[in-house]
């Protein structure tokens, strides 16, 4: 077996920053813009590139 890779744990702020950065890169949106688009039905929470962010962010206030 190869040398064991270990998962990386980020603190709360860094983890959120990572998700925000990925959301911006994937959909060109900030978190508030994403949540607004979801709540107004402009984004399908199951569509490609959206579903993974929806499960992580959709309850964020």
């Amino acid at each position, binding site marked *: 077996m190869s040398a064991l890779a270990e998962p990386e744990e980020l603190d709360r702020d860094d*983890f959120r920053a990572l998700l925000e950065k990925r959301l911006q890169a994937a959909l060109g949106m900030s978190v508030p813009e994403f949540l607004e688009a979801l709540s107004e039905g402009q984004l399908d929470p199951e569509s490609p590139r959206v*579903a993974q962010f929806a499960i992580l962010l959709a309850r964020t206030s």
Partner: protein
Amino acid sequence: MREPAKTPSAARKRYAHFLQLALSCLTTAIWTFGEIDEYSALVTSDDRIRLKREGDLPNLTLEGTQLFEIVPDDRFDGEYRTHTLAYVYTLRYEADDDELISWHWHPLTTPDRPYPHLHVAIDAPDLGTALSKAHIPTGRVSFESVVRFCLSDLAVEARENDWIDIIGDTEARFRKFSSWGGNA
């Protein structure tokens, strides 16, 4: 062998460690994990993990996301365990980034569709509905079973020669400690 988690943090790390064993059968990429709101989450370290395939077959990419929570372990006093709340595992063609297969379970964000399902990007023009939009029912799908599918059915090159044993061990652990659907 049981590895007791005496704190929520230890339970989170233990969970990520075992999922990493499975991911490492495919790639040098890692899981990144942390807390978000009252929950915890795992995302693959790159949203386009390259999966090299045998011969001249076109390469794929993998992206994984999980939402989970840490709860007291009813079976062992003073210990904690994870409880999965949602997952999305997606395979795409590397060349055009088009989605190929995506395993979904997201009861919190689609309460009207609480069951695990699969989207497959296959044209079936006579069907009268887009299969990529259809919700093909599945049982609960472990990340380990996605890794096994890639290696055994999609000719993805294994990074570990003993991947069958690694996946067997981690998936047996998943089945043993899952609160539901552990046979997936």
